[in-house]
């Protein structure tokens, strides 16, 4: 079975380490915050100028001056700090964030990522995504493995305008967890109940499949 949005978030959360500063993109990445493993502390960076993002506010706590990068009202965690956008991106672009999680339309086996526009159809803008992918060493892209029509999003070469070039090393889809190295996708894990064949079929870029591909486990 393909992973649910919640399971995607859960699997990403397994990559968290104690003391990590983490930037979570809009959408599925945001859910990761709900699955931080026990005994581990992480601090969430919101690129609009907040380190130490807390949970959503109660009605009484809502403050128009305190939002996240998705423009949702939020709160601050204990030990939070606030700063301007230049400082926020100094953190990001200077490589100080330990883990970045974000979505994409496509990735390819050169580590390229496309996520900000579909020419003629959709222009969202890159926001902070280009900075995040260029600044981080440790990035996990979360996305569906293929479109509704069964077209692979893990390509030999991205077809959409790029958000970043050669910067993606880890991809978690609803079907698999993969690493990108030496110009190839490497299958690391498969979603519970998903066959290697299905993953192979839905991966357009070159895929290396080891003899043994463990299923993901969720506690």
């Amino acid at each position, binding site marked *: 079975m393909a992973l649910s949005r919640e399971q995607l978030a859960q699997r990403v959360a397994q990559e968290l380490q104690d003391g990590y500063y983490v930037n979570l993109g809009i959408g599925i990445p945001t859910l990761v915050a709900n699955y931080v493993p026990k005994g581990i502390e992480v601090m969430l960076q*919101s*690129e*609009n*100028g*907040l380190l130490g993002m807390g*949970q*959503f*506010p*109660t*009605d*009484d*706590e*809502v*403050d*128009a*001056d*305190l*939002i*996240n990068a*998705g*423009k*949702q*009202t*939020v709160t601050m965690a204990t030990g939070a700090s*606030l*700063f*301007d*956008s*230049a400082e*926020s*991106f100094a953190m*990001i*672009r200077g490589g100080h964030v330990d883990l970045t999680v974000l979505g994409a339309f496509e990735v390819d086996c050169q580590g*390229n990522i496309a996520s*900000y526009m579909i020419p*003629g159809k959709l*222009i*969202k*803008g*890159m*926001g*902070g*995504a*280009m*900075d995040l992918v*260029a*600044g981080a060493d440790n990035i996990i892209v979360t996305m569906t493995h293929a479109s509704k029509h069964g077209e692979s999003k893990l390509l030999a070469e991205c077809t959409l*305008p*790029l*958000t*970043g*070039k*050669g910067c993606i090393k880890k991809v978690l889809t609803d079907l698999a967890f993969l690493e990108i190295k030496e110009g190839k996708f490497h299958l690391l894990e498969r979603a519970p109940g998903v066959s290697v064949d299905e993953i192979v079929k839905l991966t357009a870029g070159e895929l290396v499949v080891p003899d043994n591909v463990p299923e993901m486990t969720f506690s």
Partner: protein
Amino acid sequence: MSGFNKVVESYEEAMSGLEDGMTIIAGGFGLCGNPENLIKEIKKKGTKGLTIVSNNCGTTNHGLGILLHDKQVKKMVASYVGENEEFERQMMSGELEVELTPQGTLAEKMRAAGAGIPAFFTATGYGTPVAEGKETREINGRHYILEESIKGDFAIVKAWKADTYGNLVFRKTARNFNPMAATAGKITVVEVEEIVQPGELDPDHIHTPGIYVDRVIKGNFEKVIEQRTTRPSA
């Protein structure tokens, strides 16, 4: 005005000197910390052919978005189009010129303008459409592109408090692009929730020194929330 007193009494005075075809650097992240009354004054003035530099263009009916209705904006320099359908429509149809700029690069371009740095290298955007026509360079094994600073004829800024000398303090994430914008305008206009006397702000905790600020006005703010998200009270 005498000495360092930068307080003006009307929005008309605050935006005086703004002319058709000028470039405006605007603080704010969506509707958070945006100089909403200064924007309304620009709408009222009807100034046309503006280039606006700001992370996004508000929403369709609030913030900078209201300047799109009457086609006051010739060009937007922004990182994000989402949450404003009119922005996307004018961009797609070619009515509005748009220079999509990564958020961190945009913040740095404003800071650089204020700091006398005409250009800097950044890895952001290398190998993407953002790099088109820009110089690239490999430094210590990594690829970078050269980005230029961006200065405005006006900068419009929202702060929490100012003293009459124009020293500014921002509040929470309403800070965002405002401090950099404040440094990047030939004329920097700031609207605030409260004006205090010099000496009332802790010098160690002034976010923007008054040297960057030309005019200060006290406003009343609507503070529209784009995405009100809450959790149940315990």
